[in-house]
C-alpha cells in the first residue's frame, strides 16, 4: 500500500524532504521562462523589510523555514509580491494544499481506485497554457506534478472509462467516455449585475455577497430536501461566486438528461434582457418555490430593499413598474414617485400596497390575489438564485478544484460551511501570501520549538486554513463512511444489475 494514503498524519510531512530537490531542479528551467526577473528587484527590497521584521526570531532553528523549500537566496514569500508569483504558488502546493484529503474525496476509499486514477485533471499553467486529460494514480503523484508544473490553478473533470492519458492509444474512440462526476453548480455574481447596485464587474462587497448567501441557502435546501442528496460541498470560487459539488454516489452517476432535469428544476429566471418579466410561474407555487420564497422573503426586506436600494432613481423604478401588470396602479405610482424624487426603494415597495388599497384597479375581482402574485414574482426576480446552468447540465464539464488559489485575488477557494453560511465573509478568506507568512510566524515562535507534537504538525494546521481543511476533512469522512456502507449493501444485495 503506497505511503501517502496511510492515515498517519506524519505521512505527508514525510514526503517533504524530497520537495526542495524537486523545487530546485525544476526551478532552473521554470524561472528562466517566467516573467520573474523584472519582479525580482522589488521583491528583494520587500524581502529586506521582512527580514528585519523577523530578525529577532532566528530562522535557523525553525523546523521548516520557508526558505528551505525555496532555492537558497531566492525571494521569500512576501505579502506584496505578486500573488501568482510562481515561487509562492510552488510553496503553496508543497506546504499547504491538502492533497491527501482531496485524494480521499475523489477516490471514495482509502486505497487507490479507478475513481481517482481515471479522473481527469486539467492544469492552467503560469503562461496560461491549458493542459487537459491529466490523471494520477495517487495523491502523491498529483502533488508532485503540481509542484513541478506549478499551475496557477487546476480543474477537476469526470472519471473516464479508461485512463485519460491512454485515450489516444485506444482502438475505438468510443471506449473512452466519461462515466461519472459530481453534480456541480456554479453561481457567479456577474449574473446579478443588472440588479445589484453596490458593485459591478469583478468587484464584490459584503452587501452583494448576500446574493450568493441566499442562493446557497435555497439550492442547498432543495438538493437535500427534494432530491435527497446528503453530501453537498459548497466552495468559495475565490472572487465573486460559489461552486457546489454534490458528491453522493447517486448524483455522480447521473447522465446528462438527469443533470439537465436538476438544473431545470432549480432554474427559475428565464429570458434575456428583452423578455420582460423573467419570473413566470404557475400558481399554486410548486412546493420548492414556496419554500424558497419563505427563505428569500426574509432577505428581501433587509438585503435588497434597504441595502441594495434597487429602485432609487426614476429609471430604475421604471423597471419595477414594468413588472406590475396593472396599468392604473402603475400610472398612479409613477405620478407619486415623479413628484417625490429620491424616495427610497423601501418606501416605494410600501407604496404599491398603499395605493392599491385606495381602490385603484379594484374593478378586477381577483386584483388582491394577482397583486400578491406579482409582488411574489418581483421578490423572486430579485432574490432567487441565478445559476450558470450550462455548468450543471454536462457530465464532462470541468470545474476548478477546491483549495486552488484564485489567480486574480490570491484567495484560496475554501469550503463554505452551510450551517454557518451567513457568517462566511469572502473578504476575510486568507490569501496564499498571508498563509505562508502565518507558517513562518508560527515556526518563529520559540515556545513551540521543543514541542514534539508541533513537529508532527502539518503546515496548514499552523495557519488560518486549518478550520477550512478540518471542515473538508469532516465532509470527506462522512462521504467515505457512506460509501463504505453503500458498497457493502450493494454487495450483499447481489448483482445490482439484475432486475
Amino acid at each position, binding site marked *: 500500500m503506497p505511503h501517502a494514503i496511510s492515515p498517519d498524519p506524519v505521512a505527508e510531512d514525510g514526503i517533504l524532504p524530497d520537495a526542495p530537490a524537486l523545487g530546485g531542479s525544476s526551478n532552473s528551467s521554470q524561472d528562466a521562462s517566467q516573467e520573474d526577473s523584472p519582479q525580482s528587484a522589488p521583491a528583494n527590497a520587500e524581502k529586506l523589510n521582512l527580514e528585519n521584521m523577523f530578525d529577532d526570531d532566528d530562522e535557523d532553528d525553525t523546523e521548516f523555514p520557508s526558505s528551505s523549500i525555496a532555492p537558497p537566496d531566492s525571494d521569500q514569500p512576501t505579502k506584496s509580491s505578486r500573488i501568482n508569483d510562481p515561487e509562492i504558488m510552488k510553496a503553496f502546493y508543497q506546504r499547504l494544499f491538502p492533497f491527501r484529503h482531496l485524494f480521499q474525496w475523489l477516490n471514495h476509499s482509502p486505497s487507490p481506485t479507478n475513481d481517482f486514477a481515471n479522473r481527469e485533471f486539467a492544469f492552467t499553467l503560469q503562461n496560461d497554457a491549458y493542459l487537459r486529460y491529466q490523471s494520477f494514480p495517487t495523491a502523491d503523484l498529483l502533488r508532485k506534478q503540481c509542484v513541478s508544473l506549478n499551475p496557477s490553478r487546476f480543474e477537476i473533470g469526470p472519471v473516464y472509462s479508461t485512463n485519460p492519458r491512454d485515450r489516444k492509444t485506444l482502438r475505438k474512440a468510443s471506449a473512452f467516455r466519461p462515466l461519472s462526476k459530481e453534480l456541480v453548480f456554479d453561481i457567479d455574481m*456577474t449574473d446579478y449585475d443588472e440588479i445589484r447596485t453596490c458593485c459591478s464587474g469583478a468587484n464584490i462587497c459584503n452587501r452583494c455577497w448576500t446574493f450568493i448567501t441566499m442562493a446557497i441557502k435555497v439550492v442547498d435546501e432543495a438538493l437535500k430536501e427534494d432530491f435527497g442528496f446528503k453530501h453537498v460541498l459548497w466552495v468559495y470560487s475565490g472572487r465573486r461566486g460559489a461552486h457546489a459539488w454534490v458528491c453522493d454516489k447517486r448524483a455522480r452517476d447521473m447522465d446528462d438528461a438527469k443533470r439537465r432535469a436538476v438544473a431545470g428544476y432549480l432554474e427559475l429566471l428565464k429570458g434575456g434582457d428583452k423578455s420582460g418579466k423573467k419570473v413566470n410561474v404557475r400558481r399554486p407555487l410548486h412546493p420548492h418555490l414556496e419554500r424558497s420564497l419563505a427563505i428569500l422573503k426574509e432577505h428581501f426586506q433587509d438585503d435588497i430593499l434597504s441595502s441594495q436600494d434597487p429602485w432609487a432613481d426614476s429609471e430604475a423604478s421604471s423597471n419595477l413598474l414594468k413588472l406590475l401588470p396593472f396599468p392604473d396602479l402603475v400610472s398612479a405610482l409613477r405620478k407619486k414617485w415623479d413628484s417625490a424624487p429620491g424616495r427610497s426603494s423601501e418606501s416605494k415597495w410600501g407604496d404599491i400596497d398603499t395605493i392599491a388599497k385606495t381602490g385603484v384597479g379594484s374593478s378586477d375581482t381577483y386584483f388582491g390575489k394577482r397583486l400578491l402574485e406579482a409582488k411574489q414574482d418581483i421578490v423572486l426576480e430579485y432574490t432567487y438564485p441565478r445559476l450558470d446552468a450550462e455548468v450543471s447540465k454536462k457530465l464532462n464539464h470541468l470545474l476548478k478544484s477546491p483549495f486552488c488559489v484564485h489567480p486574480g485575488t490570491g484567495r484560496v477557494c475554501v469550503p463554505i460551511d452551510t450551517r454557518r453560511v451567513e457568517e462566511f465573509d469572502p473578504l476575510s478568506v486568507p490569501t496564499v501570501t498571508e498563509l505562508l507568512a502565518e507558517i513562518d510566524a508560527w515556526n518563529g515562535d520559540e515556545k513551540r520549538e521543543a514541542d514534539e507534537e508541533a513537529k508532527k504538525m502539518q503546515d496548514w494546521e499552523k495557519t488560518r486554513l486549518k478550520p477550512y481543511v478540518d471542515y473538508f476533512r469532516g465532509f470527506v469522512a462522512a462521504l467515505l463512511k457512506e460509501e463504505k456502507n453503500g458498497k457493502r449493501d450493494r454487495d450483499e444485495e447481489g448483482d445490482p444489475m439484475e432486475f
Partner: protein
Amino acid sequence: MIRQEALRGDPKRRLGLNHKKKQFEQPQFKQQDYTHRLNFYILPPTLDITLEEFEEWAISRLKVLAELEACAFRNRTPEETASYMQPILAKHLPLAQNSSRSSNLQDERKRDHYSHFILRLAFAATEDLRRRFSRLETQLFKLRFQSDDARERREFVDHLNFEWDKVGEEEKRGLAEELAAVTPFKSKNAGSEEEGWFKVDWEQVPELVEGRKVFLKRGKAYVPVREQTTLVVNEFQRRLDQGLVLTSRALPRLDEDDRLSPILAHLSKSFTAPDAAYSQDSSLSGNDISAANVDALSTHFPACMSHLHSTLRANSHLKHFGRLQYTLFLKGIGLSLPECIAFWRKSFRLITDEKFTKEYLYNIRHAYGDVGGDANRRGRGYTPYSCQKLLTEGMPGPGQTHGCPYRTFSPDNLVGLLQKMGVNDRDLLKTVREDVGRQRYHIACNRVFESAHKNELKKVKDEGTWNAADLDTILHPNTYFKRSFLLKNMGKVQSGDVGMEDPSQ
C-alpha cells in the same frame, strides 16, 4: 393466459432458461400470442418468415418512422402530429384495438412485432443510428399509447407489472397541500384526494422534474396517475436502449448470413437523416461577403440575427451562445474563417488582442472546424442553426441574446425590434402579435419576410422565374438571408444562381 403469466418479473428467470442448455433447447415461445395492442418488445420473434416479408415489413415501418421524424422537423405540435400520422399509420402499420374485433388482429400485431425487431437489427450498428431509432420508436410508442383505449391501456400497464409504490392514503393526506400545489387544475378541488399517486425515484421521470410537474421529497418523486404516460414511455425507452446495445454486440455474428446483411445495410442507408439544417447552397458564392460589409448585409438578416448584430454593435460584446449562433450564421452566408475572425476582432472593440486570442479565437475556429477533435474537423465544424434548433433550445438567461426573438421577446419588445428593422405596417404587427401569442413563431417570421419583400415576390411569381420550392416556408435563418438577398438584388445576380434548393428539403 399462460403466456401472460410468463411475462412477469425477471426476463431471464421467468422463461426458466438454463443458459448452459439453451442452445440445444427447442424455442419455447415459437408462436407468440398478442393479447395487447401495444408491445414493449421484450421477447424477440422466433417464427420463420420469408425474405420478402422481412423486407416488406421493415420498409413499411421505416416509412412510418421517417414521417414521424419529418413531423418533428416541421415543428408540428403533438396534436398536429397525431392527426397527421393517423392515415399514415393506418396505411403502413395498422394496429387495431381488441375491441375492434378485427379478424387480423394477430397478424397486425405480428407484423408490428417483427418489423420492430428487424429494424433493431438494421439500426443497432452505430451510436447515432441507435439514438435516432430509439427516439423515433419511443415517439411511435407514445403516440400509440396515448391513442389507446383507456381500459386496454390500463390492462397493458398492469400486465407490465412495474414496481411503482402507490402512495398510501395516510401519506397522501399528510402531503395534501404539497400535492395539490403540483396539480395544475385546482378547480377540481378534490384533486389530490381522489387521484392516485405513485412514488418513484426521481431519476425515472427527469422531464417531469425538469418542468417542476411533480412533488419531490428526499429523492422520491410523487407522480400523479395522469402522468403515468411519462413513466411508461421512459421505461419503454430505457429497455429499448438496453436492448439495442445488446443487439449491437450480437451483430457481428450476423455477418455470415449473406441473405440478411444486404437488406439490413440497405435499410439503414435509406434512413439517413434529411439534414434539416443546412446545405452549402445557402451561401452566396461569387458575391462579396467580407467582414467589412456585414453591416450592409445585415439589412437582409432575419430578426434573430438582426438582433444579435445590433446588440453586438451596441455593446461591443455578445455572450457565448449569441456568439455561437451568430458565428454559425455568418459561416452559413459564406463568410470565410479569416474574415469571420476579422469581423469579431473588430466588433469586440473594448477587448485587448491578448484577451481576444485567449478567450474567443478558439471558439470561432472550432465552429469552423479549424481546430478540435477529428470529427469536428472532418465535419467542417458545426452546422448553422435552423429555426427548429433555435425554437427548441432553452430560453436565454439574463444578459443573453441568443434564440428566436419571436419566442424569447415579450410582445412589446418584439414589436419594438421589428420597428427598428423597418417594419411599420400596423396590421402586420397586429397579426404578428397574434401569431406569437399562439406560439406560431416561424409563421410570424415568414409573414414579416413576405411583407418586406412584397414587390419582389410578386415580380418573381408573375415572371415565373422561381419555382415553388424556392418560395416555400422559410425554416432556416440562412434561407431567410439568401432569399432576401437574391430578391433585393435581382437585377445584379444572375438568374442561374437563383435556382437554389431549400435546405430543409
